[in-house]
């Protein structure tokens, strides 16, 4: 099961608007990695997951990290820098995970669309959840954004959050 992470967010939302109501539920997310002027720039580690009303992680959607050996050891060494994700899910997860873990991504907007058959969403009951996006950059900062949403609600659930430092605009659209 793969997640498509390629189409710009505008196309994802456009598809949503014209889609017939009878189609399966899905989740479209866009995460912007901002351009940062730094003498030493490394692409951030990013984790994207879903929390329930008790702030427990119920589904990992994406984890972007350096998946190879570098000069300073294997990239997994720095996964705890995504410290909320590490605490809630990462430390009990055996990486890599097919369809969830992926290499770090460059500056720009990254869209992903998951349908209700995706393993992360297949068993998710209808209800209120929070999308959490956490980014941590080597010799840089860390930022965490949250967007509440309704999964399989009566109407489409749309939300956004604007990062200040390590993240740009994050948008979410949950189609019932």
């Amino acid at each position: 099961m793969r997640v498509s992470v390629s189409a710009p967010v505008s196309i994802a939302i456009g598809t949503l608007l014209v889609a017939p109501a009878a189609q399966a539920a899905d989740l479209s997310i866009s995460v912007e990695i901002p351009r940062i002027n730094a003498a030493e720039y490394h692409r951030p580690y990013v984790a994207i997951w879903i929390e329930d009303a008790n702030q427990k992680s119920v589904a990992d959607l994406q984890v972007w990290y350096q998946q190879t050996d570098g000069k300073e050891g294997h990239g997994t060494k720095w996964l705890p820098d995504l410290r909320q994700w590490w605490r809630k899910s990462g430390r009990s997860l055996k990486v890599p995970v097919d369809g969830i873990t992926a290499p770090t991504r460059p500056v720009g907007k990254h869209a992903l669309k998951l349908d209700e058959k995706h393993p992360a969403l297949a068993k998710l009951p209808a209800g209120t959840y929070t999308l959490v996006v956490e980014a941590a950059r080597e010799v840089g900062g860390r930022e965490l954004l949250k967007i509440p949403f309704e999964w399989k609600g009566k109407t489409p659930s749309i939300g956004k959050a604007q990062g200040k430092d390590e993240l740009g605009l994050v948008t979410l659209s949950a189609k019932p």
Partner: protein
Amino acid sequence: MKRISILAAIIAAAIPLSAIAHKQWLVPSSTVLAGKDAWITVDAAISNALYYPDHNPMRLDNIVITAPDGSTHKPQNPATGKYRSVFDVQLEQQGTYRIANVNGGVSARWDTPESLAAAEAAKDNPAPAAGGMGGTPRGGMLRNATAEDLATKIPKNALNVQVTEGIGRVETFATNGSPSDVAPIGKGLELVPVTHPNDLFAGEAATFRLVVDGKPVAGLEIEIIRGGTRYRNAQEEIKATTDAKGEFSVTWPDAGMYWLETATTDSKTSVPQARQRRLSYVGTFEVLPQ
């Protein structure tokens, strides 16, 4: 003034497990780790400021590293400097490592007519501080003594014999991957986690239990101080007291390394010459930001 400081040094030397001693600590370079080649380096010292080595290095002879599977390991790459000792720990297994310095047993100190005479002479002609523990030498001492040692190794002309017994534990924790349960020791004064010691976050409450020989102790007073004392005017200590279950809770005001100390005494001595058993506990706990 001088005499008072010498007296204080003598008292400090004579009662190594007392709360009036300087702060002992082990500080790990990190406490939350991941990967197949996870290492930490640990500082070990006895100081006034937290966590700045400014007094004495900790002796590494009694450092015990307990891996998640219960096996024990020696420190790697140990070194002792003027103010601080350091060593490495490789976290080969997934789970929580306990790194502890455990001192204890029966010790004895005494004067002899010769040592008292020397001390008297030194009083009239004070020598410059020699560094180290300082204080005027006593007639002799025994560490880790048995009942037989006490009967045979203390000279017949010994005066002011002091026999003390105690167990002092200084420890910290680090976790590779998911935290695992910390097995109780069952001997001496120890902290039993209710909240895992590597799962501490600013603004959240943590609960711990204090036990002596495995049994909860009510009414124990705990002092908690965040590191970085050099850069603030007050110690900002947090006080807590154990309840009937031996438990106490603390809500961490900020992220940082926290030094936690408690001590007590009881009468469960193994030799009749020791009037009481001194028990002390020091832990270093890392609290992460939200």
